[in-house]
């Protein structure tokens, strides 16, 4: 019996390699120019974030102090030595933008990681057990989605005695799960009655195993799309919170923090606002393009 199952799996694997849906999706993705631009931008973003210490020519947090605590390079416009200029404390804005990619990506990934765990768990529980539990989770989803996103994040940040990037992870993660829970719930409900689930159950598979082995693989396409777009959303939200002074705190080089400082000097040194803002826009656009492309490639039926 066991040998037979294994053999069948092998056959399935071989036939999948030839026409695997993932392979087909990749072929569709490759044909989509905008998606490839998005993939390119996202890759560059990853490289910049990982190799920030090699790419950035200066320390992003502290400028060299010349003497008597004086900073010589304070508030210099763009030049060859400092292509994006320097800020009030003499720090190289280019280096800060480079390191900012780290914070943004970390926020995006950690936030979506938390959202994934919460969303899959709650969605699966709701779909699997149904009844009152389902009603309760669905109600929670509706209420969470009724808050304007940034406003919800602001309200949560108010709970912490000191704002900081670690709290941003938590706040954004706690409010990003509802779309994922919806997807997983729907998927669980639609396959719950299928014969192969019944078979797995009668073979003694635990609920956890069924969710991991059957539910998640079946809803992987919409999950990937939602998480990708969620990363972009989290990057925007972190920058926004930090711009308001409620997120990442200086001296950490978050793009939002840099725009906040830039705003203070906007009258005399407007060059300070250009590059952090461009960085946010390009990063978010790249990830959004990739997400849109993935949606078209993974499931041609899915729509906005």
């Amino acid at each position, binding site marked *: 019996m066991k040998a037979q199952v294994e053999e069948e799996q092998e056959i399935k694997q071989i036939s999948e390699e030839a026409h695997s849906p993932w392979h087909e999706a990749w072929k569709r993705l490759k044909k989509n120019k905008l998606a490839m631009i998005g993939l390119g931008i996202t890759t560059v973003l990853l490289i910049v974030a990982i190799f920030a210490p090699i790419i950035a020519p200066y320390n992003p947090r502290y400028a060299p102090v010349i003497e008597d605590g004086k900073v010589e390079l304070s508030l210099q416009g763009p030049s060859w030595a400092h292509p994006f200029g320097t800020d009030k404390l003499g720090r190289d804005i280019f280096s800060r933008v480079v390191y900012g990619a780290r914070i943004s990506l970390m926020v995006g990934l950690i936030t979506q990681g938390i959202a994934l765990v919460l969303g899959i768990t709650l969605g699966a529980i709701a779909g699997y057990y149904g009844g009152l539990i389902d009603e309760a989770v669905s*109600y*929670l989803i*509706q*209420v*969470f989605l*009724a*808050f*304007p*996103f*940034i*406003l*919800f994040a*602001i*309200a*949560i*940040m*108010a*709970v912490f*005695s000191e704002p900081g990037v670690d709290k941003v992870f938590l706040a954004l993660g706690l409010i990003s799960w509802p779309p994922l829970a919806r997807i997983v719930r729907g998927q669980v409900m639609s396959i719950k009655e299928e014969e192969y689930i019944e078979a797995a159950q009668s073979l003694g598979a635990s609920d956890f195993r069924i969710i991991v082995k059957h539910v998640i693989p079946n809803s992987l396409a919409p999950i990937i799309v939602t998480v990708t777009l969620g990363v*972009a959303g989290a990057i*925007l939200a972190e*920058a*926004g919170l930090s*711009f*308001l*002074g*409620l997120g990442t705190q200086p001296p950490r080089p978050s793009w939002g923090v840099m*725009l906040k400082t*830039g*705003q203070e000097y*906007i*009258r005399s040194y*407007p060059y300070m*606002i250009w590059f*952090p*803002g461009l960085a*946010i*826009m*390009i990063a*978010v*656009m790249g990830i*959004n*393009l990739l997400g849109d492309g993935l949606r078209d490639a993974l499931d041609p039926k899915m729509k*906005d």
Partner: protein
Amino acid sequence: MLGYILRKTLMVVPILIGIATITFLLNFVFVPGDPVRISMGQHADPETIEMIRAEMGLDDPLIVQYGRFIGGLFKGDFGKSFTTRQPVLDMVLERFPATAKLALAATIISIVLGVSAGIVSAVKSNSFLDYFFMTFSMLGISMPVYWLGLVLIVVFSLNLDLLPAGGYGSGSLRYLILPAFALGFRQAAKVARMTRSSMLEVIDKDYVKTARAKGLSEQIVVIKHALKNALIPVITVIGTQLGYLLGGAVLTESVFSWPGLGRLAVNAVLKRDFPLIQGTVIFLAACFVLVNLLVDLSYGLLDPRIRYD
């Protein structure tokens, strides 16, 4: 029809209670320590703190506090601000017109820009103009509203000296233009994309072909036959995007020193004035929920194919 409206409206009540419950939990249960002490700071006079605690009934069991809070909301009592000692609802209502004005202006801008760009893109699809508008809308969706605000200030206030860089200007239109544009641009981008795709969908439909075949001018075909039917998804976008718009308003108001609810909320968080945070958040979320209700209800008026069962 009336039954449908009633049912939809009643469904909003539990959502509003849920919103209020979550904000209550955040501000008065999850906050580590005494919210009054946190708000007043380390050196606050213990007697004042005691007074406020007693006045707000913060020494009662939580469930009693919660019941009083929800009951108060139904009577329009949002509690009192820790810092100004004024009723929260008064403070919220005082700031609301500025935010409503900003949000409305931004929505109008987004509809005018978005729908016209979307129509042109759809009618001349794959032309230079189409690519131009769609590139712009891709940028618009990815651009932080407050950054666009800063860029507009640099260009139109500091360099060209055309418009004021911030403030309310006692309601003068000149002060509204830049913040409304900054806030409306993202929405315009969304509306443009949606208009384009839903126009492209209806433009191939038989009734549009018929309209053309019977010799109607292109303008009439586009506006009377195609656009009218393409607008329904566009209205949905405007409704669902209102959440972003209200969130964006918080950021835009900070950039332009606009005296609205968003700035009130941010200042409340910075001062950790919990009843005020609660009030502004509940109020803005309720606006979002109610506008979405109106959008839901308006489908039937726009699209007779939708039935209320």
